[in-house]
């Protein structure tokens, strides 16, 4: 345990568990002692969370949000892959770079334009999410392409591959695991945006809409209970996507083990 303050020190699994539990207890104690009439104590939030879990309201709204997120993620990764693969062709490189720069645009300023371009609230939410996610996905995937080891291209050349074969082998097949990792890492961004876009069309529900409703009535206990749920769902998806990646691309597991 003395090593926990030593840089680069390796500590046992048991020591890690003990340390994390103690840190969590410390945070909860701090939260408990600093909570007053406005900020609910952790016990109250936990009770509200457990109560929410038993309600149909949460299940329905969570399902709406999850479906929308998964749909947006799938569309976004498809668009990202097309843009990223095309980015190695000079004609499309500038387009890809422009999309990356779109990270700096705020969604709020574009809501009206998207409202005009889409048919209904459902489409509006989906398109806003995709527009928000794609620049981040593209940015991450272009970084992967830029950092490809030169030897991967050289090996293709020495094997007599054409440029298209090289693109397929090195970027499409060779970096498929990285695309999955980007999906995992950026799930947090989509999950963050969902609560925002759901506030635009509350008729369909969703945890974002639910949270706005609780916020409106200053029901901070339920807001924090929902935050806890969002956090846990995020962690679950992170774990699931990580596990699927290891299963689909076994060599990534070897790389992790070696490093």
């Amino acid at each position: 345990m003395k090593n926990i303050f030593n840089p680069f020190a390796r500590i046992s699994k048991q020591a890690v568990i003990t340390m994390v539990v103690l840190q969590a207890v410390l945070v909860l104690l701090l939260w408990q002692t600093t909570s007053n009439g406005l900020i609910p104590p952790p016990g109250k939030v936990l009770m509200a969370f457990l109560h929410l879990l038993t309600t149909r309201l949460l299940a329905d709204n969570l399902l709406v949000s999850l479906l929308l997120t998964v749909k947006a993620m799938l569309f976004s990764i498809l668009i990202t892959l097309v843009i990223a693969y095309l980015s190695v062709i000079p004609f499309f490189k500038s387009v890809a770079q422009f999309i990356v720069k779109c990270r700096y645009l705020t969604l709020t300023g574009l809501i009206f334009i998207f409202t005009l371009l889409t048919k209904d609230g459902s489409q509006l939410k989906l398109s806003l999410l995709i527009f928000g996610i794609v620049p981040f996905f593209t940015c991450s995937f272009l970084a992967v392409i830029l950092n490809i080891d030169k030897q991967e291209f050289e090996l293709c050349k020495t094997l007599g591959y054409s440029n298209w074969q090289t693109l397929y082998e090195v970027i499409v097949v060779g970096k498929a695991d990285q695309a999955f990792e980007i999906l995992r890492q950026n799930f947090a961004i989509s999950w963050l945006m969902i609560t925002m876009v759901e506030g635009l069309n509350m008729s369909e529900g969703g945890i974002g809409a639910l949270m706005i409703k609780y916020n409106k009535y200053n029901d901070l206990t339920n807001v924090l209970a929902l935050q806890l749920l969002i956090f846990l769902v995020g962690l679950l998806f992170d774990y699931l996507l990580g596990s699927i990646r290891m299963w689909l691309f076994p060599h990534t597991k070897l790389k992790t083990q070696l490093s």
Partner: protein
Amino acid sequence: MTAYSKKQVLLKAERVQLNYGDQVILRDVNFEVRDIVRPGMQQGQVVSLIGRSGMGKTQLFKLLSGLQTPTSGRITLQNNQTVKAGDMGVIFQNYYLFEWRTVYQSLLLAAKQNDLLKGKEKTSIDAYAERFQLAEHLNLYPQQLSGGQRQRASIIQQLLKGSNFLLLDEPFSGLDICVLDKVVDLLLEVSVSDEFKTLIIVSHDIASCVAISDTVFILGKETGKPGATIVKQIDLIERGLAWQQDLRHMPVFADTIDEIKACL
């Protein structure tokens, strides 16, 4: 002395020059590799390009492999075609293989590039894997292989691709003495697999190069002139050092090593 003759030119470097900006890296590099014919057997060629570190060996390696083009001059193959990427089988120093492919998948990709193997890719892979003691490792990923296994996988990959030329960058680097002997045997085995099989070894390991080659080209600098060039060519067949067992104990072997060292 073993009967032999040198026939057609298989590879020729003519007045090859490589500059990086104003800096001359390689200057007026000229050499040729001819088909060595020995009666009653298939005898490939093994030539070594020896030079000190920083002399431009890697650049010459890239020029020979077609991965880089010279500033001026030409490197041609027997049909007088300028060498281009894909003409030579290239084995990089770290035996790079696609990390996302199993050994078998990598070998299959290489075999599919070879029209002569059409329809018999799998049997060819199995045959090579058996011959190079890699049959049990075909379903492993490169990260699971030892350095020696990776090297063998790289060699098989390039052999399956079907090029007669095999260009090896520092194949003896970092190997212990037992593995070194195995690598030398392996390369000699490859060299006699086809009459036109030509191994070009780029290395700074003088003893190993002399032990395996029929010809040595020394890359060095000439006084007062910029850039490296071929300063000497040694025909090891004439000296009775090619195709010999236990040549390391021969006095002429030690003399040749000293001679090469003096040129570097």
